[in-house]
């Protein structure tokens, strides 16, 4: 479904991604793990065709992203790191705008908006102006926007950041409920979150994929929990560098 072939990305002198390759199959839920600045957001931006890679290729559904970006974008629901909201719009107007831009047929727009409002528990604030919403609600509007067109692929950059515990559980539930229908890529700093919902983990360190394993294999191999593994990987390397 999603194939990245030796993707590198430079920002000027800085090499943000080094030869990143991976393959993600339909129906998988994959978690991206990594420290701040590791390159998670950069990978996601390349997958969504927002940024072009410096070299390497990305294929989604067999099509190369940079060449067929419009068809590829139709399949993707994307929640960027900062929820991309128009603060002067009401929640409903914003979702309507998103539905139009994402080719939701005119007749289904209302039904679809109601559905995502329900799923993201936003019914009560649908006529509120976005700028007055709390951070968690804004995050939920961002998620609602990503799933408005029933995308085959969901790319969520830190989806549960800023949500309260009940919401976190609810959003995880939402992501899990999409399983087998959709491919989901999410990044997070909450390791237990990955343990709860992901099938597979990609640990990214300084722009390189250092671990790409199913969760089961990874836990078996290290015989400890994810937090331990994450710390070991990063501390060990840091010691080597010193």
């Amino acid at each position, binding site marked *: 479904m999603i194939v990245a072939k030796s993707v590198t990305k430079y920002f000027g002198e800085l090499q943000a991604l080094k030869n990143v390759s991976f393959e993600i199959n339909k129906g998988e839920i994959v978690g991206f793990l990594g420290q701040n600045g590791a390159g998670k957001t950069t990978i996601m931006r390349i997958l969504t065709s927002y940024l072009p890679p410096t070299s390497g290729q990305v294929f989604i559904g067999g099509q190369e992203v940079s060449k067929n970006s419009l068809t590829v974008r139709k399949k993707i629901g*994307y929640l*960027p790191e900062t929820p991309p909201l128009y603060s002067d719009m009401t929640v409903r107007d914003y979702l309507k705008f998103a539905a139009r831009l994402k*080719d939701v047929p005119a007749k289904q727009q209302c039904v679809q908006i109601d559905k995502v409002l329900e799923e993201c528990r936003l019914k009560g604030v649908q006529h509120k102006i976005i700028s007055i919403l709390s951070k968690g609600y804004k995050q939920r509007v961002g998620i609602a926007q990503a799933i408005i067109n029933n995308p085959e692929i969901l790319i969520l950059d830190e989806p549960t950041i800023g949500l309260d515990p009940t919401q976190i559980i609810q959003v995880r539930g939402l992501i899990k409920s999409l399983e087998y229908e959709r491919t989901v890529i999410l990044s997070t700093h909450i390791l237990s979150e990955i343990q709860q919902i992901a099938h597979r983990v990609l640990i990214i360190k300084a722009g390189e994929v250092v671990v790409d394993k199913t969760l089961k294999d990874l836990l078996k191999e290290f015989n400890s929990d994810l937090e331990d593994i994450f710390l070991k990987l990063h501390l060990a390397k840091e010691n080597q560098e010193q």
Partner: protein
Amino acid sequence: MKKIFAIAKKELKAYFKSPIAYIVLIVTISVFNIFFFLIIDGDREADLRDVFKCMEFLFIFIVPLLTMKIFAEEKLSGTMEFLMTTPTTNTAIVLGKYLGSLVFFTIIIGITSSYYFIIEFFGQPDRLTILAGYLGIWLEGALFIAIGILISSWTKNQIVAAISSYTVLFLLYFSIGFIKYFSGWAEIVIRYIAIWSHTGNLTAGIITTADLVYYISGIFVCIVFTRLSIENRLWR
């Protein structure tokens, strides 16, 4: 096509939610009232030419206020990432935004058309002349907006966008004053680019192909460059 309208509608709604748009509306109408009164009070000549001249000068002040946010705001708030990852072409994004601003601007001009009816009441104006004048002033505003949007696409900072737009528009407006320092092809180029060489005819109600070409090609070039500029990934 549908998406162009969706974006234009969003832009237009955003104007009516922002205080700047109302300030612009109020300033335009007040300035008009004053000028109109002065003209009518002075010589009672049923002529909109002076009104057009004043309108033109006013546009230089208001257009940057209308266009500064167009792309700068989207870039700053991260909504550009949303727009550009939906299946919308960059051309549709630029045209939608341009159309939205143009419609708002047309509404402002539309309000001033009430003066026409007053003139009609007092005298016998030349309708064709006035219509041509309106077309000219509208085209000029349309060009200013295209320039403002292009400049807004270069920066994340609305203030920078506004100040740069003022600079460019003032240069366009006053460049004819510096023409005596130039000669040869530079003089020809400046004379062609200067707004002044083109509005004279239009405000007098004369439409020439050369002037139409000037405005329309200017708008076209700005739109093409805006599209290139949002495609340019350097700022991301």
